């Protein structure tokens, strides 16, 4: 067992694509945690979705054993990986709470980006020691001098502290390992005290039950020990405990300062929540360690099974997935158009997309997501208080509303200076209020805006990328509620209101948004056996109308000769298409139609 003074707990923080996963791979290789034969790239991003999207979605932990060249002693380095997308700053902060230090990776050709700033601030808030690394110095486009200057000016990081590295080539990686040992403090906490372990993550294993990932703050945990989860009160005899190498490797005990896993054998998701404290049932701690704030959902959408019978499956799937990803919320709701489903809250739009994809892939479900919305505060007339509305179709009647308030965010955008104009235009078109502008270096600026969150979630990020040839980056944080002149636009398909398509928009934009949306729906809803009118209305006042013409024929009137296979396959494809549609009234509406609002481009 490695003594506490030779333990180091750290994370790697970086803007997306700055080389975090590659650096993690190199650290694993250099410490022989994984031998070169088993090495696949991005070892820690083991989810298919993560590799496909090139991002880390879930935090993960791994224990490296490193013999320091300084003193020849073996150190236990616990790397707690963090997600790298703007939606997941909540997961980042959770990981950081289990660490004493963080490696800050900055791309030598890109420089400081919006998330670099956000992550550094999170790390400093947690009192972490930062080990700055300038990565990708091998690239011909690397500008180490310029970026060193940026780090000094913007983040007050002295240039002599910065390690120059190329994770791809392996340069500088030994220096990083030495710096982890030399600069990051060992964890504190008395192994003889009563047991206190913070649960920073978990997963569900069909054989071992809920497996929690813990960082022990105090005490020592032994195999077969009877444990208690302080918030839920659940108790169990642990089935296994161990460390991440990077697979789960059992050990006999874990003590203060260490990071590892505990197979609790608990079957219920609710008994072992992330943020809870694990302690000994026989000799419990007096108090839990400070846990996490609940993740705050910013984006809400209804998730409905395509086929009503799958509702119980969806409920189970949400429950299981929630154990893996506590950062989304869900509650049952029903829709006139879509039947029974769940209103889910997400950290952002990408998070919503990921949760939906994971539900579909990992649980074999076919889902319909309603248009995403933010959560509004609605002040009722006659002093009847305020209600929160996260579903546009639940907005109270107009004459019951005194005022609607919507969430705003503080938005930071880092961009080459040449794109200031287009970004200013994009942001002010989205009702954004420009705050200030700061030069990071002569070519790049940090712009700050205040903006309604509802405007941001639609497709601001895509627009930002497309207008700056991909160069700009962004990050945002909440900035409270402000009153706004908002109205609800309802959509009627074939004369029937489809609640899942309702949206809340600024009054001045209602007309144009309604027009663009019905036009988009006309293109997305296939022709039916009859003519289908699509209308947008505010109250009973129709503001836009389009018609899907009736289908005239659908027949294979072609000579395919003896090729019956081709005929049949074409029919099977049509059948599949029909199965992926939701019948609303007498009209079959494809899944994509419910997300039409996101595909409207510049509405």
């Amino acid at each position, binding site marked *: 067992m490695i003594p506490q003074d030779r333990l180091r707990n750290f994370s790697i923080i970086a803007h997306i694509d700055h080389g975090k996963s590659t650096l993690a791979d190199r650290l694993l290789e250099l410490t022989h945690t994984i031998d070169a034969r088993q090495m696949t790239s991005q070892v820690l991003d083991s989810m298919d979705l993560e590799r496909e999207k090139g991002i880390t979605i879930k935090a993960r932990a791994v224990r490296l054993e490193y013999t320091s060249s300084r003193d020849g002693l073996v150190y236990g380095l616990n790397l707690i990986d963090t997600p790298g997308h703007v939606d997941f700053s909540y997961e980042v902060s959770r990981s950081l709470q289990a660490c004493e230090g963080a490696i800050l990776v900055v791309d030598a050709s890109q420089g400081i980006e919006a998330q670099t700033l956000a992550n550094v601030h999170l790390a400093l808030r947690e009192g972490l020691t930062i080990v700055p690394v300038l990565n990708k110095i091998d690239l011909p486009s690397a500008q180490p001098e310029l970026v060193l200057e940026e780090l000094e000016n913007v983040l007050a990081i002295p240039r002599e502290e910065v390690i120059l590295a190329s994770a791809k080539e392996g340069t500088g990686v030994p220096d990083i390992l030495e710096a982890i040992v030399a600069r990051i403090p060992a964890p504190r906490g008395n192994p003889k005290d009563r047991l206190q372990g913070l649960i920073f993550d978990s997963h569900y294993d069909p054989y071992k039950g809920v497996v929690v990932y813990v960082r022990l703050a105090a005490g020592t945990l032994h195999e077969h020990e009877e444990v208690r989860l302080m918030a839920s009160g659940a108790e169990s005899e642990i089935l296994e405990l161990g460390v991440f190498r990077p697979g789960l490797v059992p050990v006999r005990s874990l003590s203060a300062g260490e990071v590892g896993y505990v197979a609790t054998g608990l079957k219920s998701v609710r008994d072992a929540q992330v943020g809870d404290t694990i302690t000994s049932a026989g000799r419990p701690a007096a108090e839990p360690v400070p846990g996490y704030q609940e993740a705050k959902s910013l984006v809400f959408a209804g998730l409905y099974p395509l086929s009503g019978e799958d509702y119980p499956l969806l409920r189970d799937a949400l429950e299981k997935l929630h154990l893996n990803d506590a950062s989304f919320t869900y509650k049952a709701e029903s829709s006139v158009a879509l039947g029974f489903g769940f209103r889910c809250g997400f950290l952002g739009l990408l998070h919503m997309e990921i949760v939906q994809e994971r539900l579909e892939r990992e649980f074999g479900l076919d889902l319909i997501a309603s248009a995403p919305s933010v959560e509004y505060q609605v002040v009722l007339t006659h002093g009847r208080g305020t209600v929160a509305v996260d579903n546009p179709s639940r907005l109270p009647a107009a004459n019951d509303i005194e005022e609607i308030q919507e969430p705003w965010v503080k938005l930071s955008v880092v961009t080459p200076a040449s794109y200031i104009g287009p970004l200013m235009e994009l942001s002010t078109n989205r009702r954004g209020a420009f705050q200030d502008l700061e030069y990071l270096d002569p070519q790049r600026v940090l712009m700050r805006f205040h903006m309604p969150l509802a405007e941001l979630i639609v497709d601001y990020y895509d627009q930002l990328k497309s207008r700056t040839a991909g160069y700009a980056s962004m990050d945002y944080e909440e900035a409270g509620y402000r009153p706004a002149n908002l109205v609800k636009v309802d959509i009627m398909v074939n004369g029937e209101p489809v609640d899942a398509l309702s949206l809340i928009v600024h009054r001045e934009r209602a007309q144009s948004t309604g027009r663009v949306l019905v036009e988009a729906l006309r293109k997305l809803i296939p022709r039916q056996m009859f003519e289908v009118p699509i209308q947008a209305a505010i109250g009973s006042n129709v503001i836009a109308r389009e018609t899907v013409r009736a289908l*005239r024929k659908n027949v294979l009137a*072609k000579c395919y*000769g*003896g090729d019956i296979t*081709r005929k049949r396959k074409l*029919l099977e494809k049509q059948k599949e298409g*029909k199965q992926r549609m939701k019948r609303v009234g007498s009209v079959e509406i494809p899944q994509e139609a419910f997300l039409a609002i996101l595909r409207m481009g510049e509405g």
Partner: protein
Amino acid sequence: MTEREPAELATGLEAASGPAPRSLYVHVPFCVSLCPYCDFVVYTGRSTRGPRSRIDAFVGALSQELELRADIVDARFGALGSVARRPLDTLYFGGGTPSLLPPASIAALVQVVRERFGLATEAEVTLEANPGPDDRGDATGFADAGVTRLSLGAQSFQDEELRTLGRRHRGAHVADAVLAARSARIASINIDLLYDVPGQTLASWTDSLERALALAPDHVSLYALTLDDPDAEGLTGELGDHLPTRSGARRWRAASRRRQDDERATAMYHHATALLAGEGWRAYEISNWARRGHESRHNLAYWWRQPYEAVGPGAHAFDGTRRRWNAARLEGYLAALQPPDGSKPILPPGSSETVDASTAAAESMILGLRLDTGVPAELMAEPALTDAFAWAKSLGFLLVDGSRVRLTTRGRLFSNELFARLI
């Protein structure tokens, strides 16, 4: 499912699962020029004419394939003359433009077929031909070779439409071709016409139809111009049964799709249906009309799900449980059957799929509903099908009389809507 067929399947050692085939399709993949809407396996230009012509090599390869396929049928059902081996009832030369083959080649192929598969005295032997003077061939020669039915790819009688479609002949040529066939005493003549052609009007369609009928054919096939994308359907791979679409054809299809109109097409179909019914034609299949006794027996075998053999690139065969097809590419076809090194010929590359019982039932129903004889009415009471049939009935798609249920004209136009609900 679409791997190259394992050798043991091709040896014919499996047990016979149904009757031996009584129909045979021969694909001739040559045309003088390419029509941009056509999906069939076709080679043009130097392949068809002059010193680099591959027609002779191809006819040799076809004969070789006929021999190899016949060996398999012999192994499964016994040699020709045994009880299970009745001679073929139909033989069909399709393409491409089979009328590009010299009558002597057709005669030679018919002879191989007669020797190895048998050919009933009253067998229907169809040959597809273009009406143009340079590719319609010698009708008398074909008749002497044994052809009893000629299928003319007229497509339209309007020269403007023929130009749009990339056809080489003119409207007036169709009459010459019919006359030549009649003089050669070919017993049955079909004329193919296309509707929903860019630039076509209800008036020009009516005119084409009337001019076709004025030639007193025995059969007409009216096809909607269908602009597919075989590449997107995944049919054009190495072992696929289609060739990749040429870029010119792809562009032509994209532009033409925009000039098609469902409303107009529907009107054309209704109009043709009424006109032909008025003149006593039998609308025996969604796209096919015949005078009594002139229904295409070969095509009926497809729709009745009877086994059929097939040879030539891209050709499809069915043995009752397995659907098999040859790969489209001519090089691979010739290399297998006419090995340049003189080694023993082998079956050409291709793939197959086995049709399971439920798919077979669905196929029977769908193919049956394409015909005016329909399917047994008791199918409407099958629990898995009642909803779909009730839905179709409520929309006026079905006609139930006595023991059979069949599609109305409206039902035919929406047949895919019903079929997709039945499979």
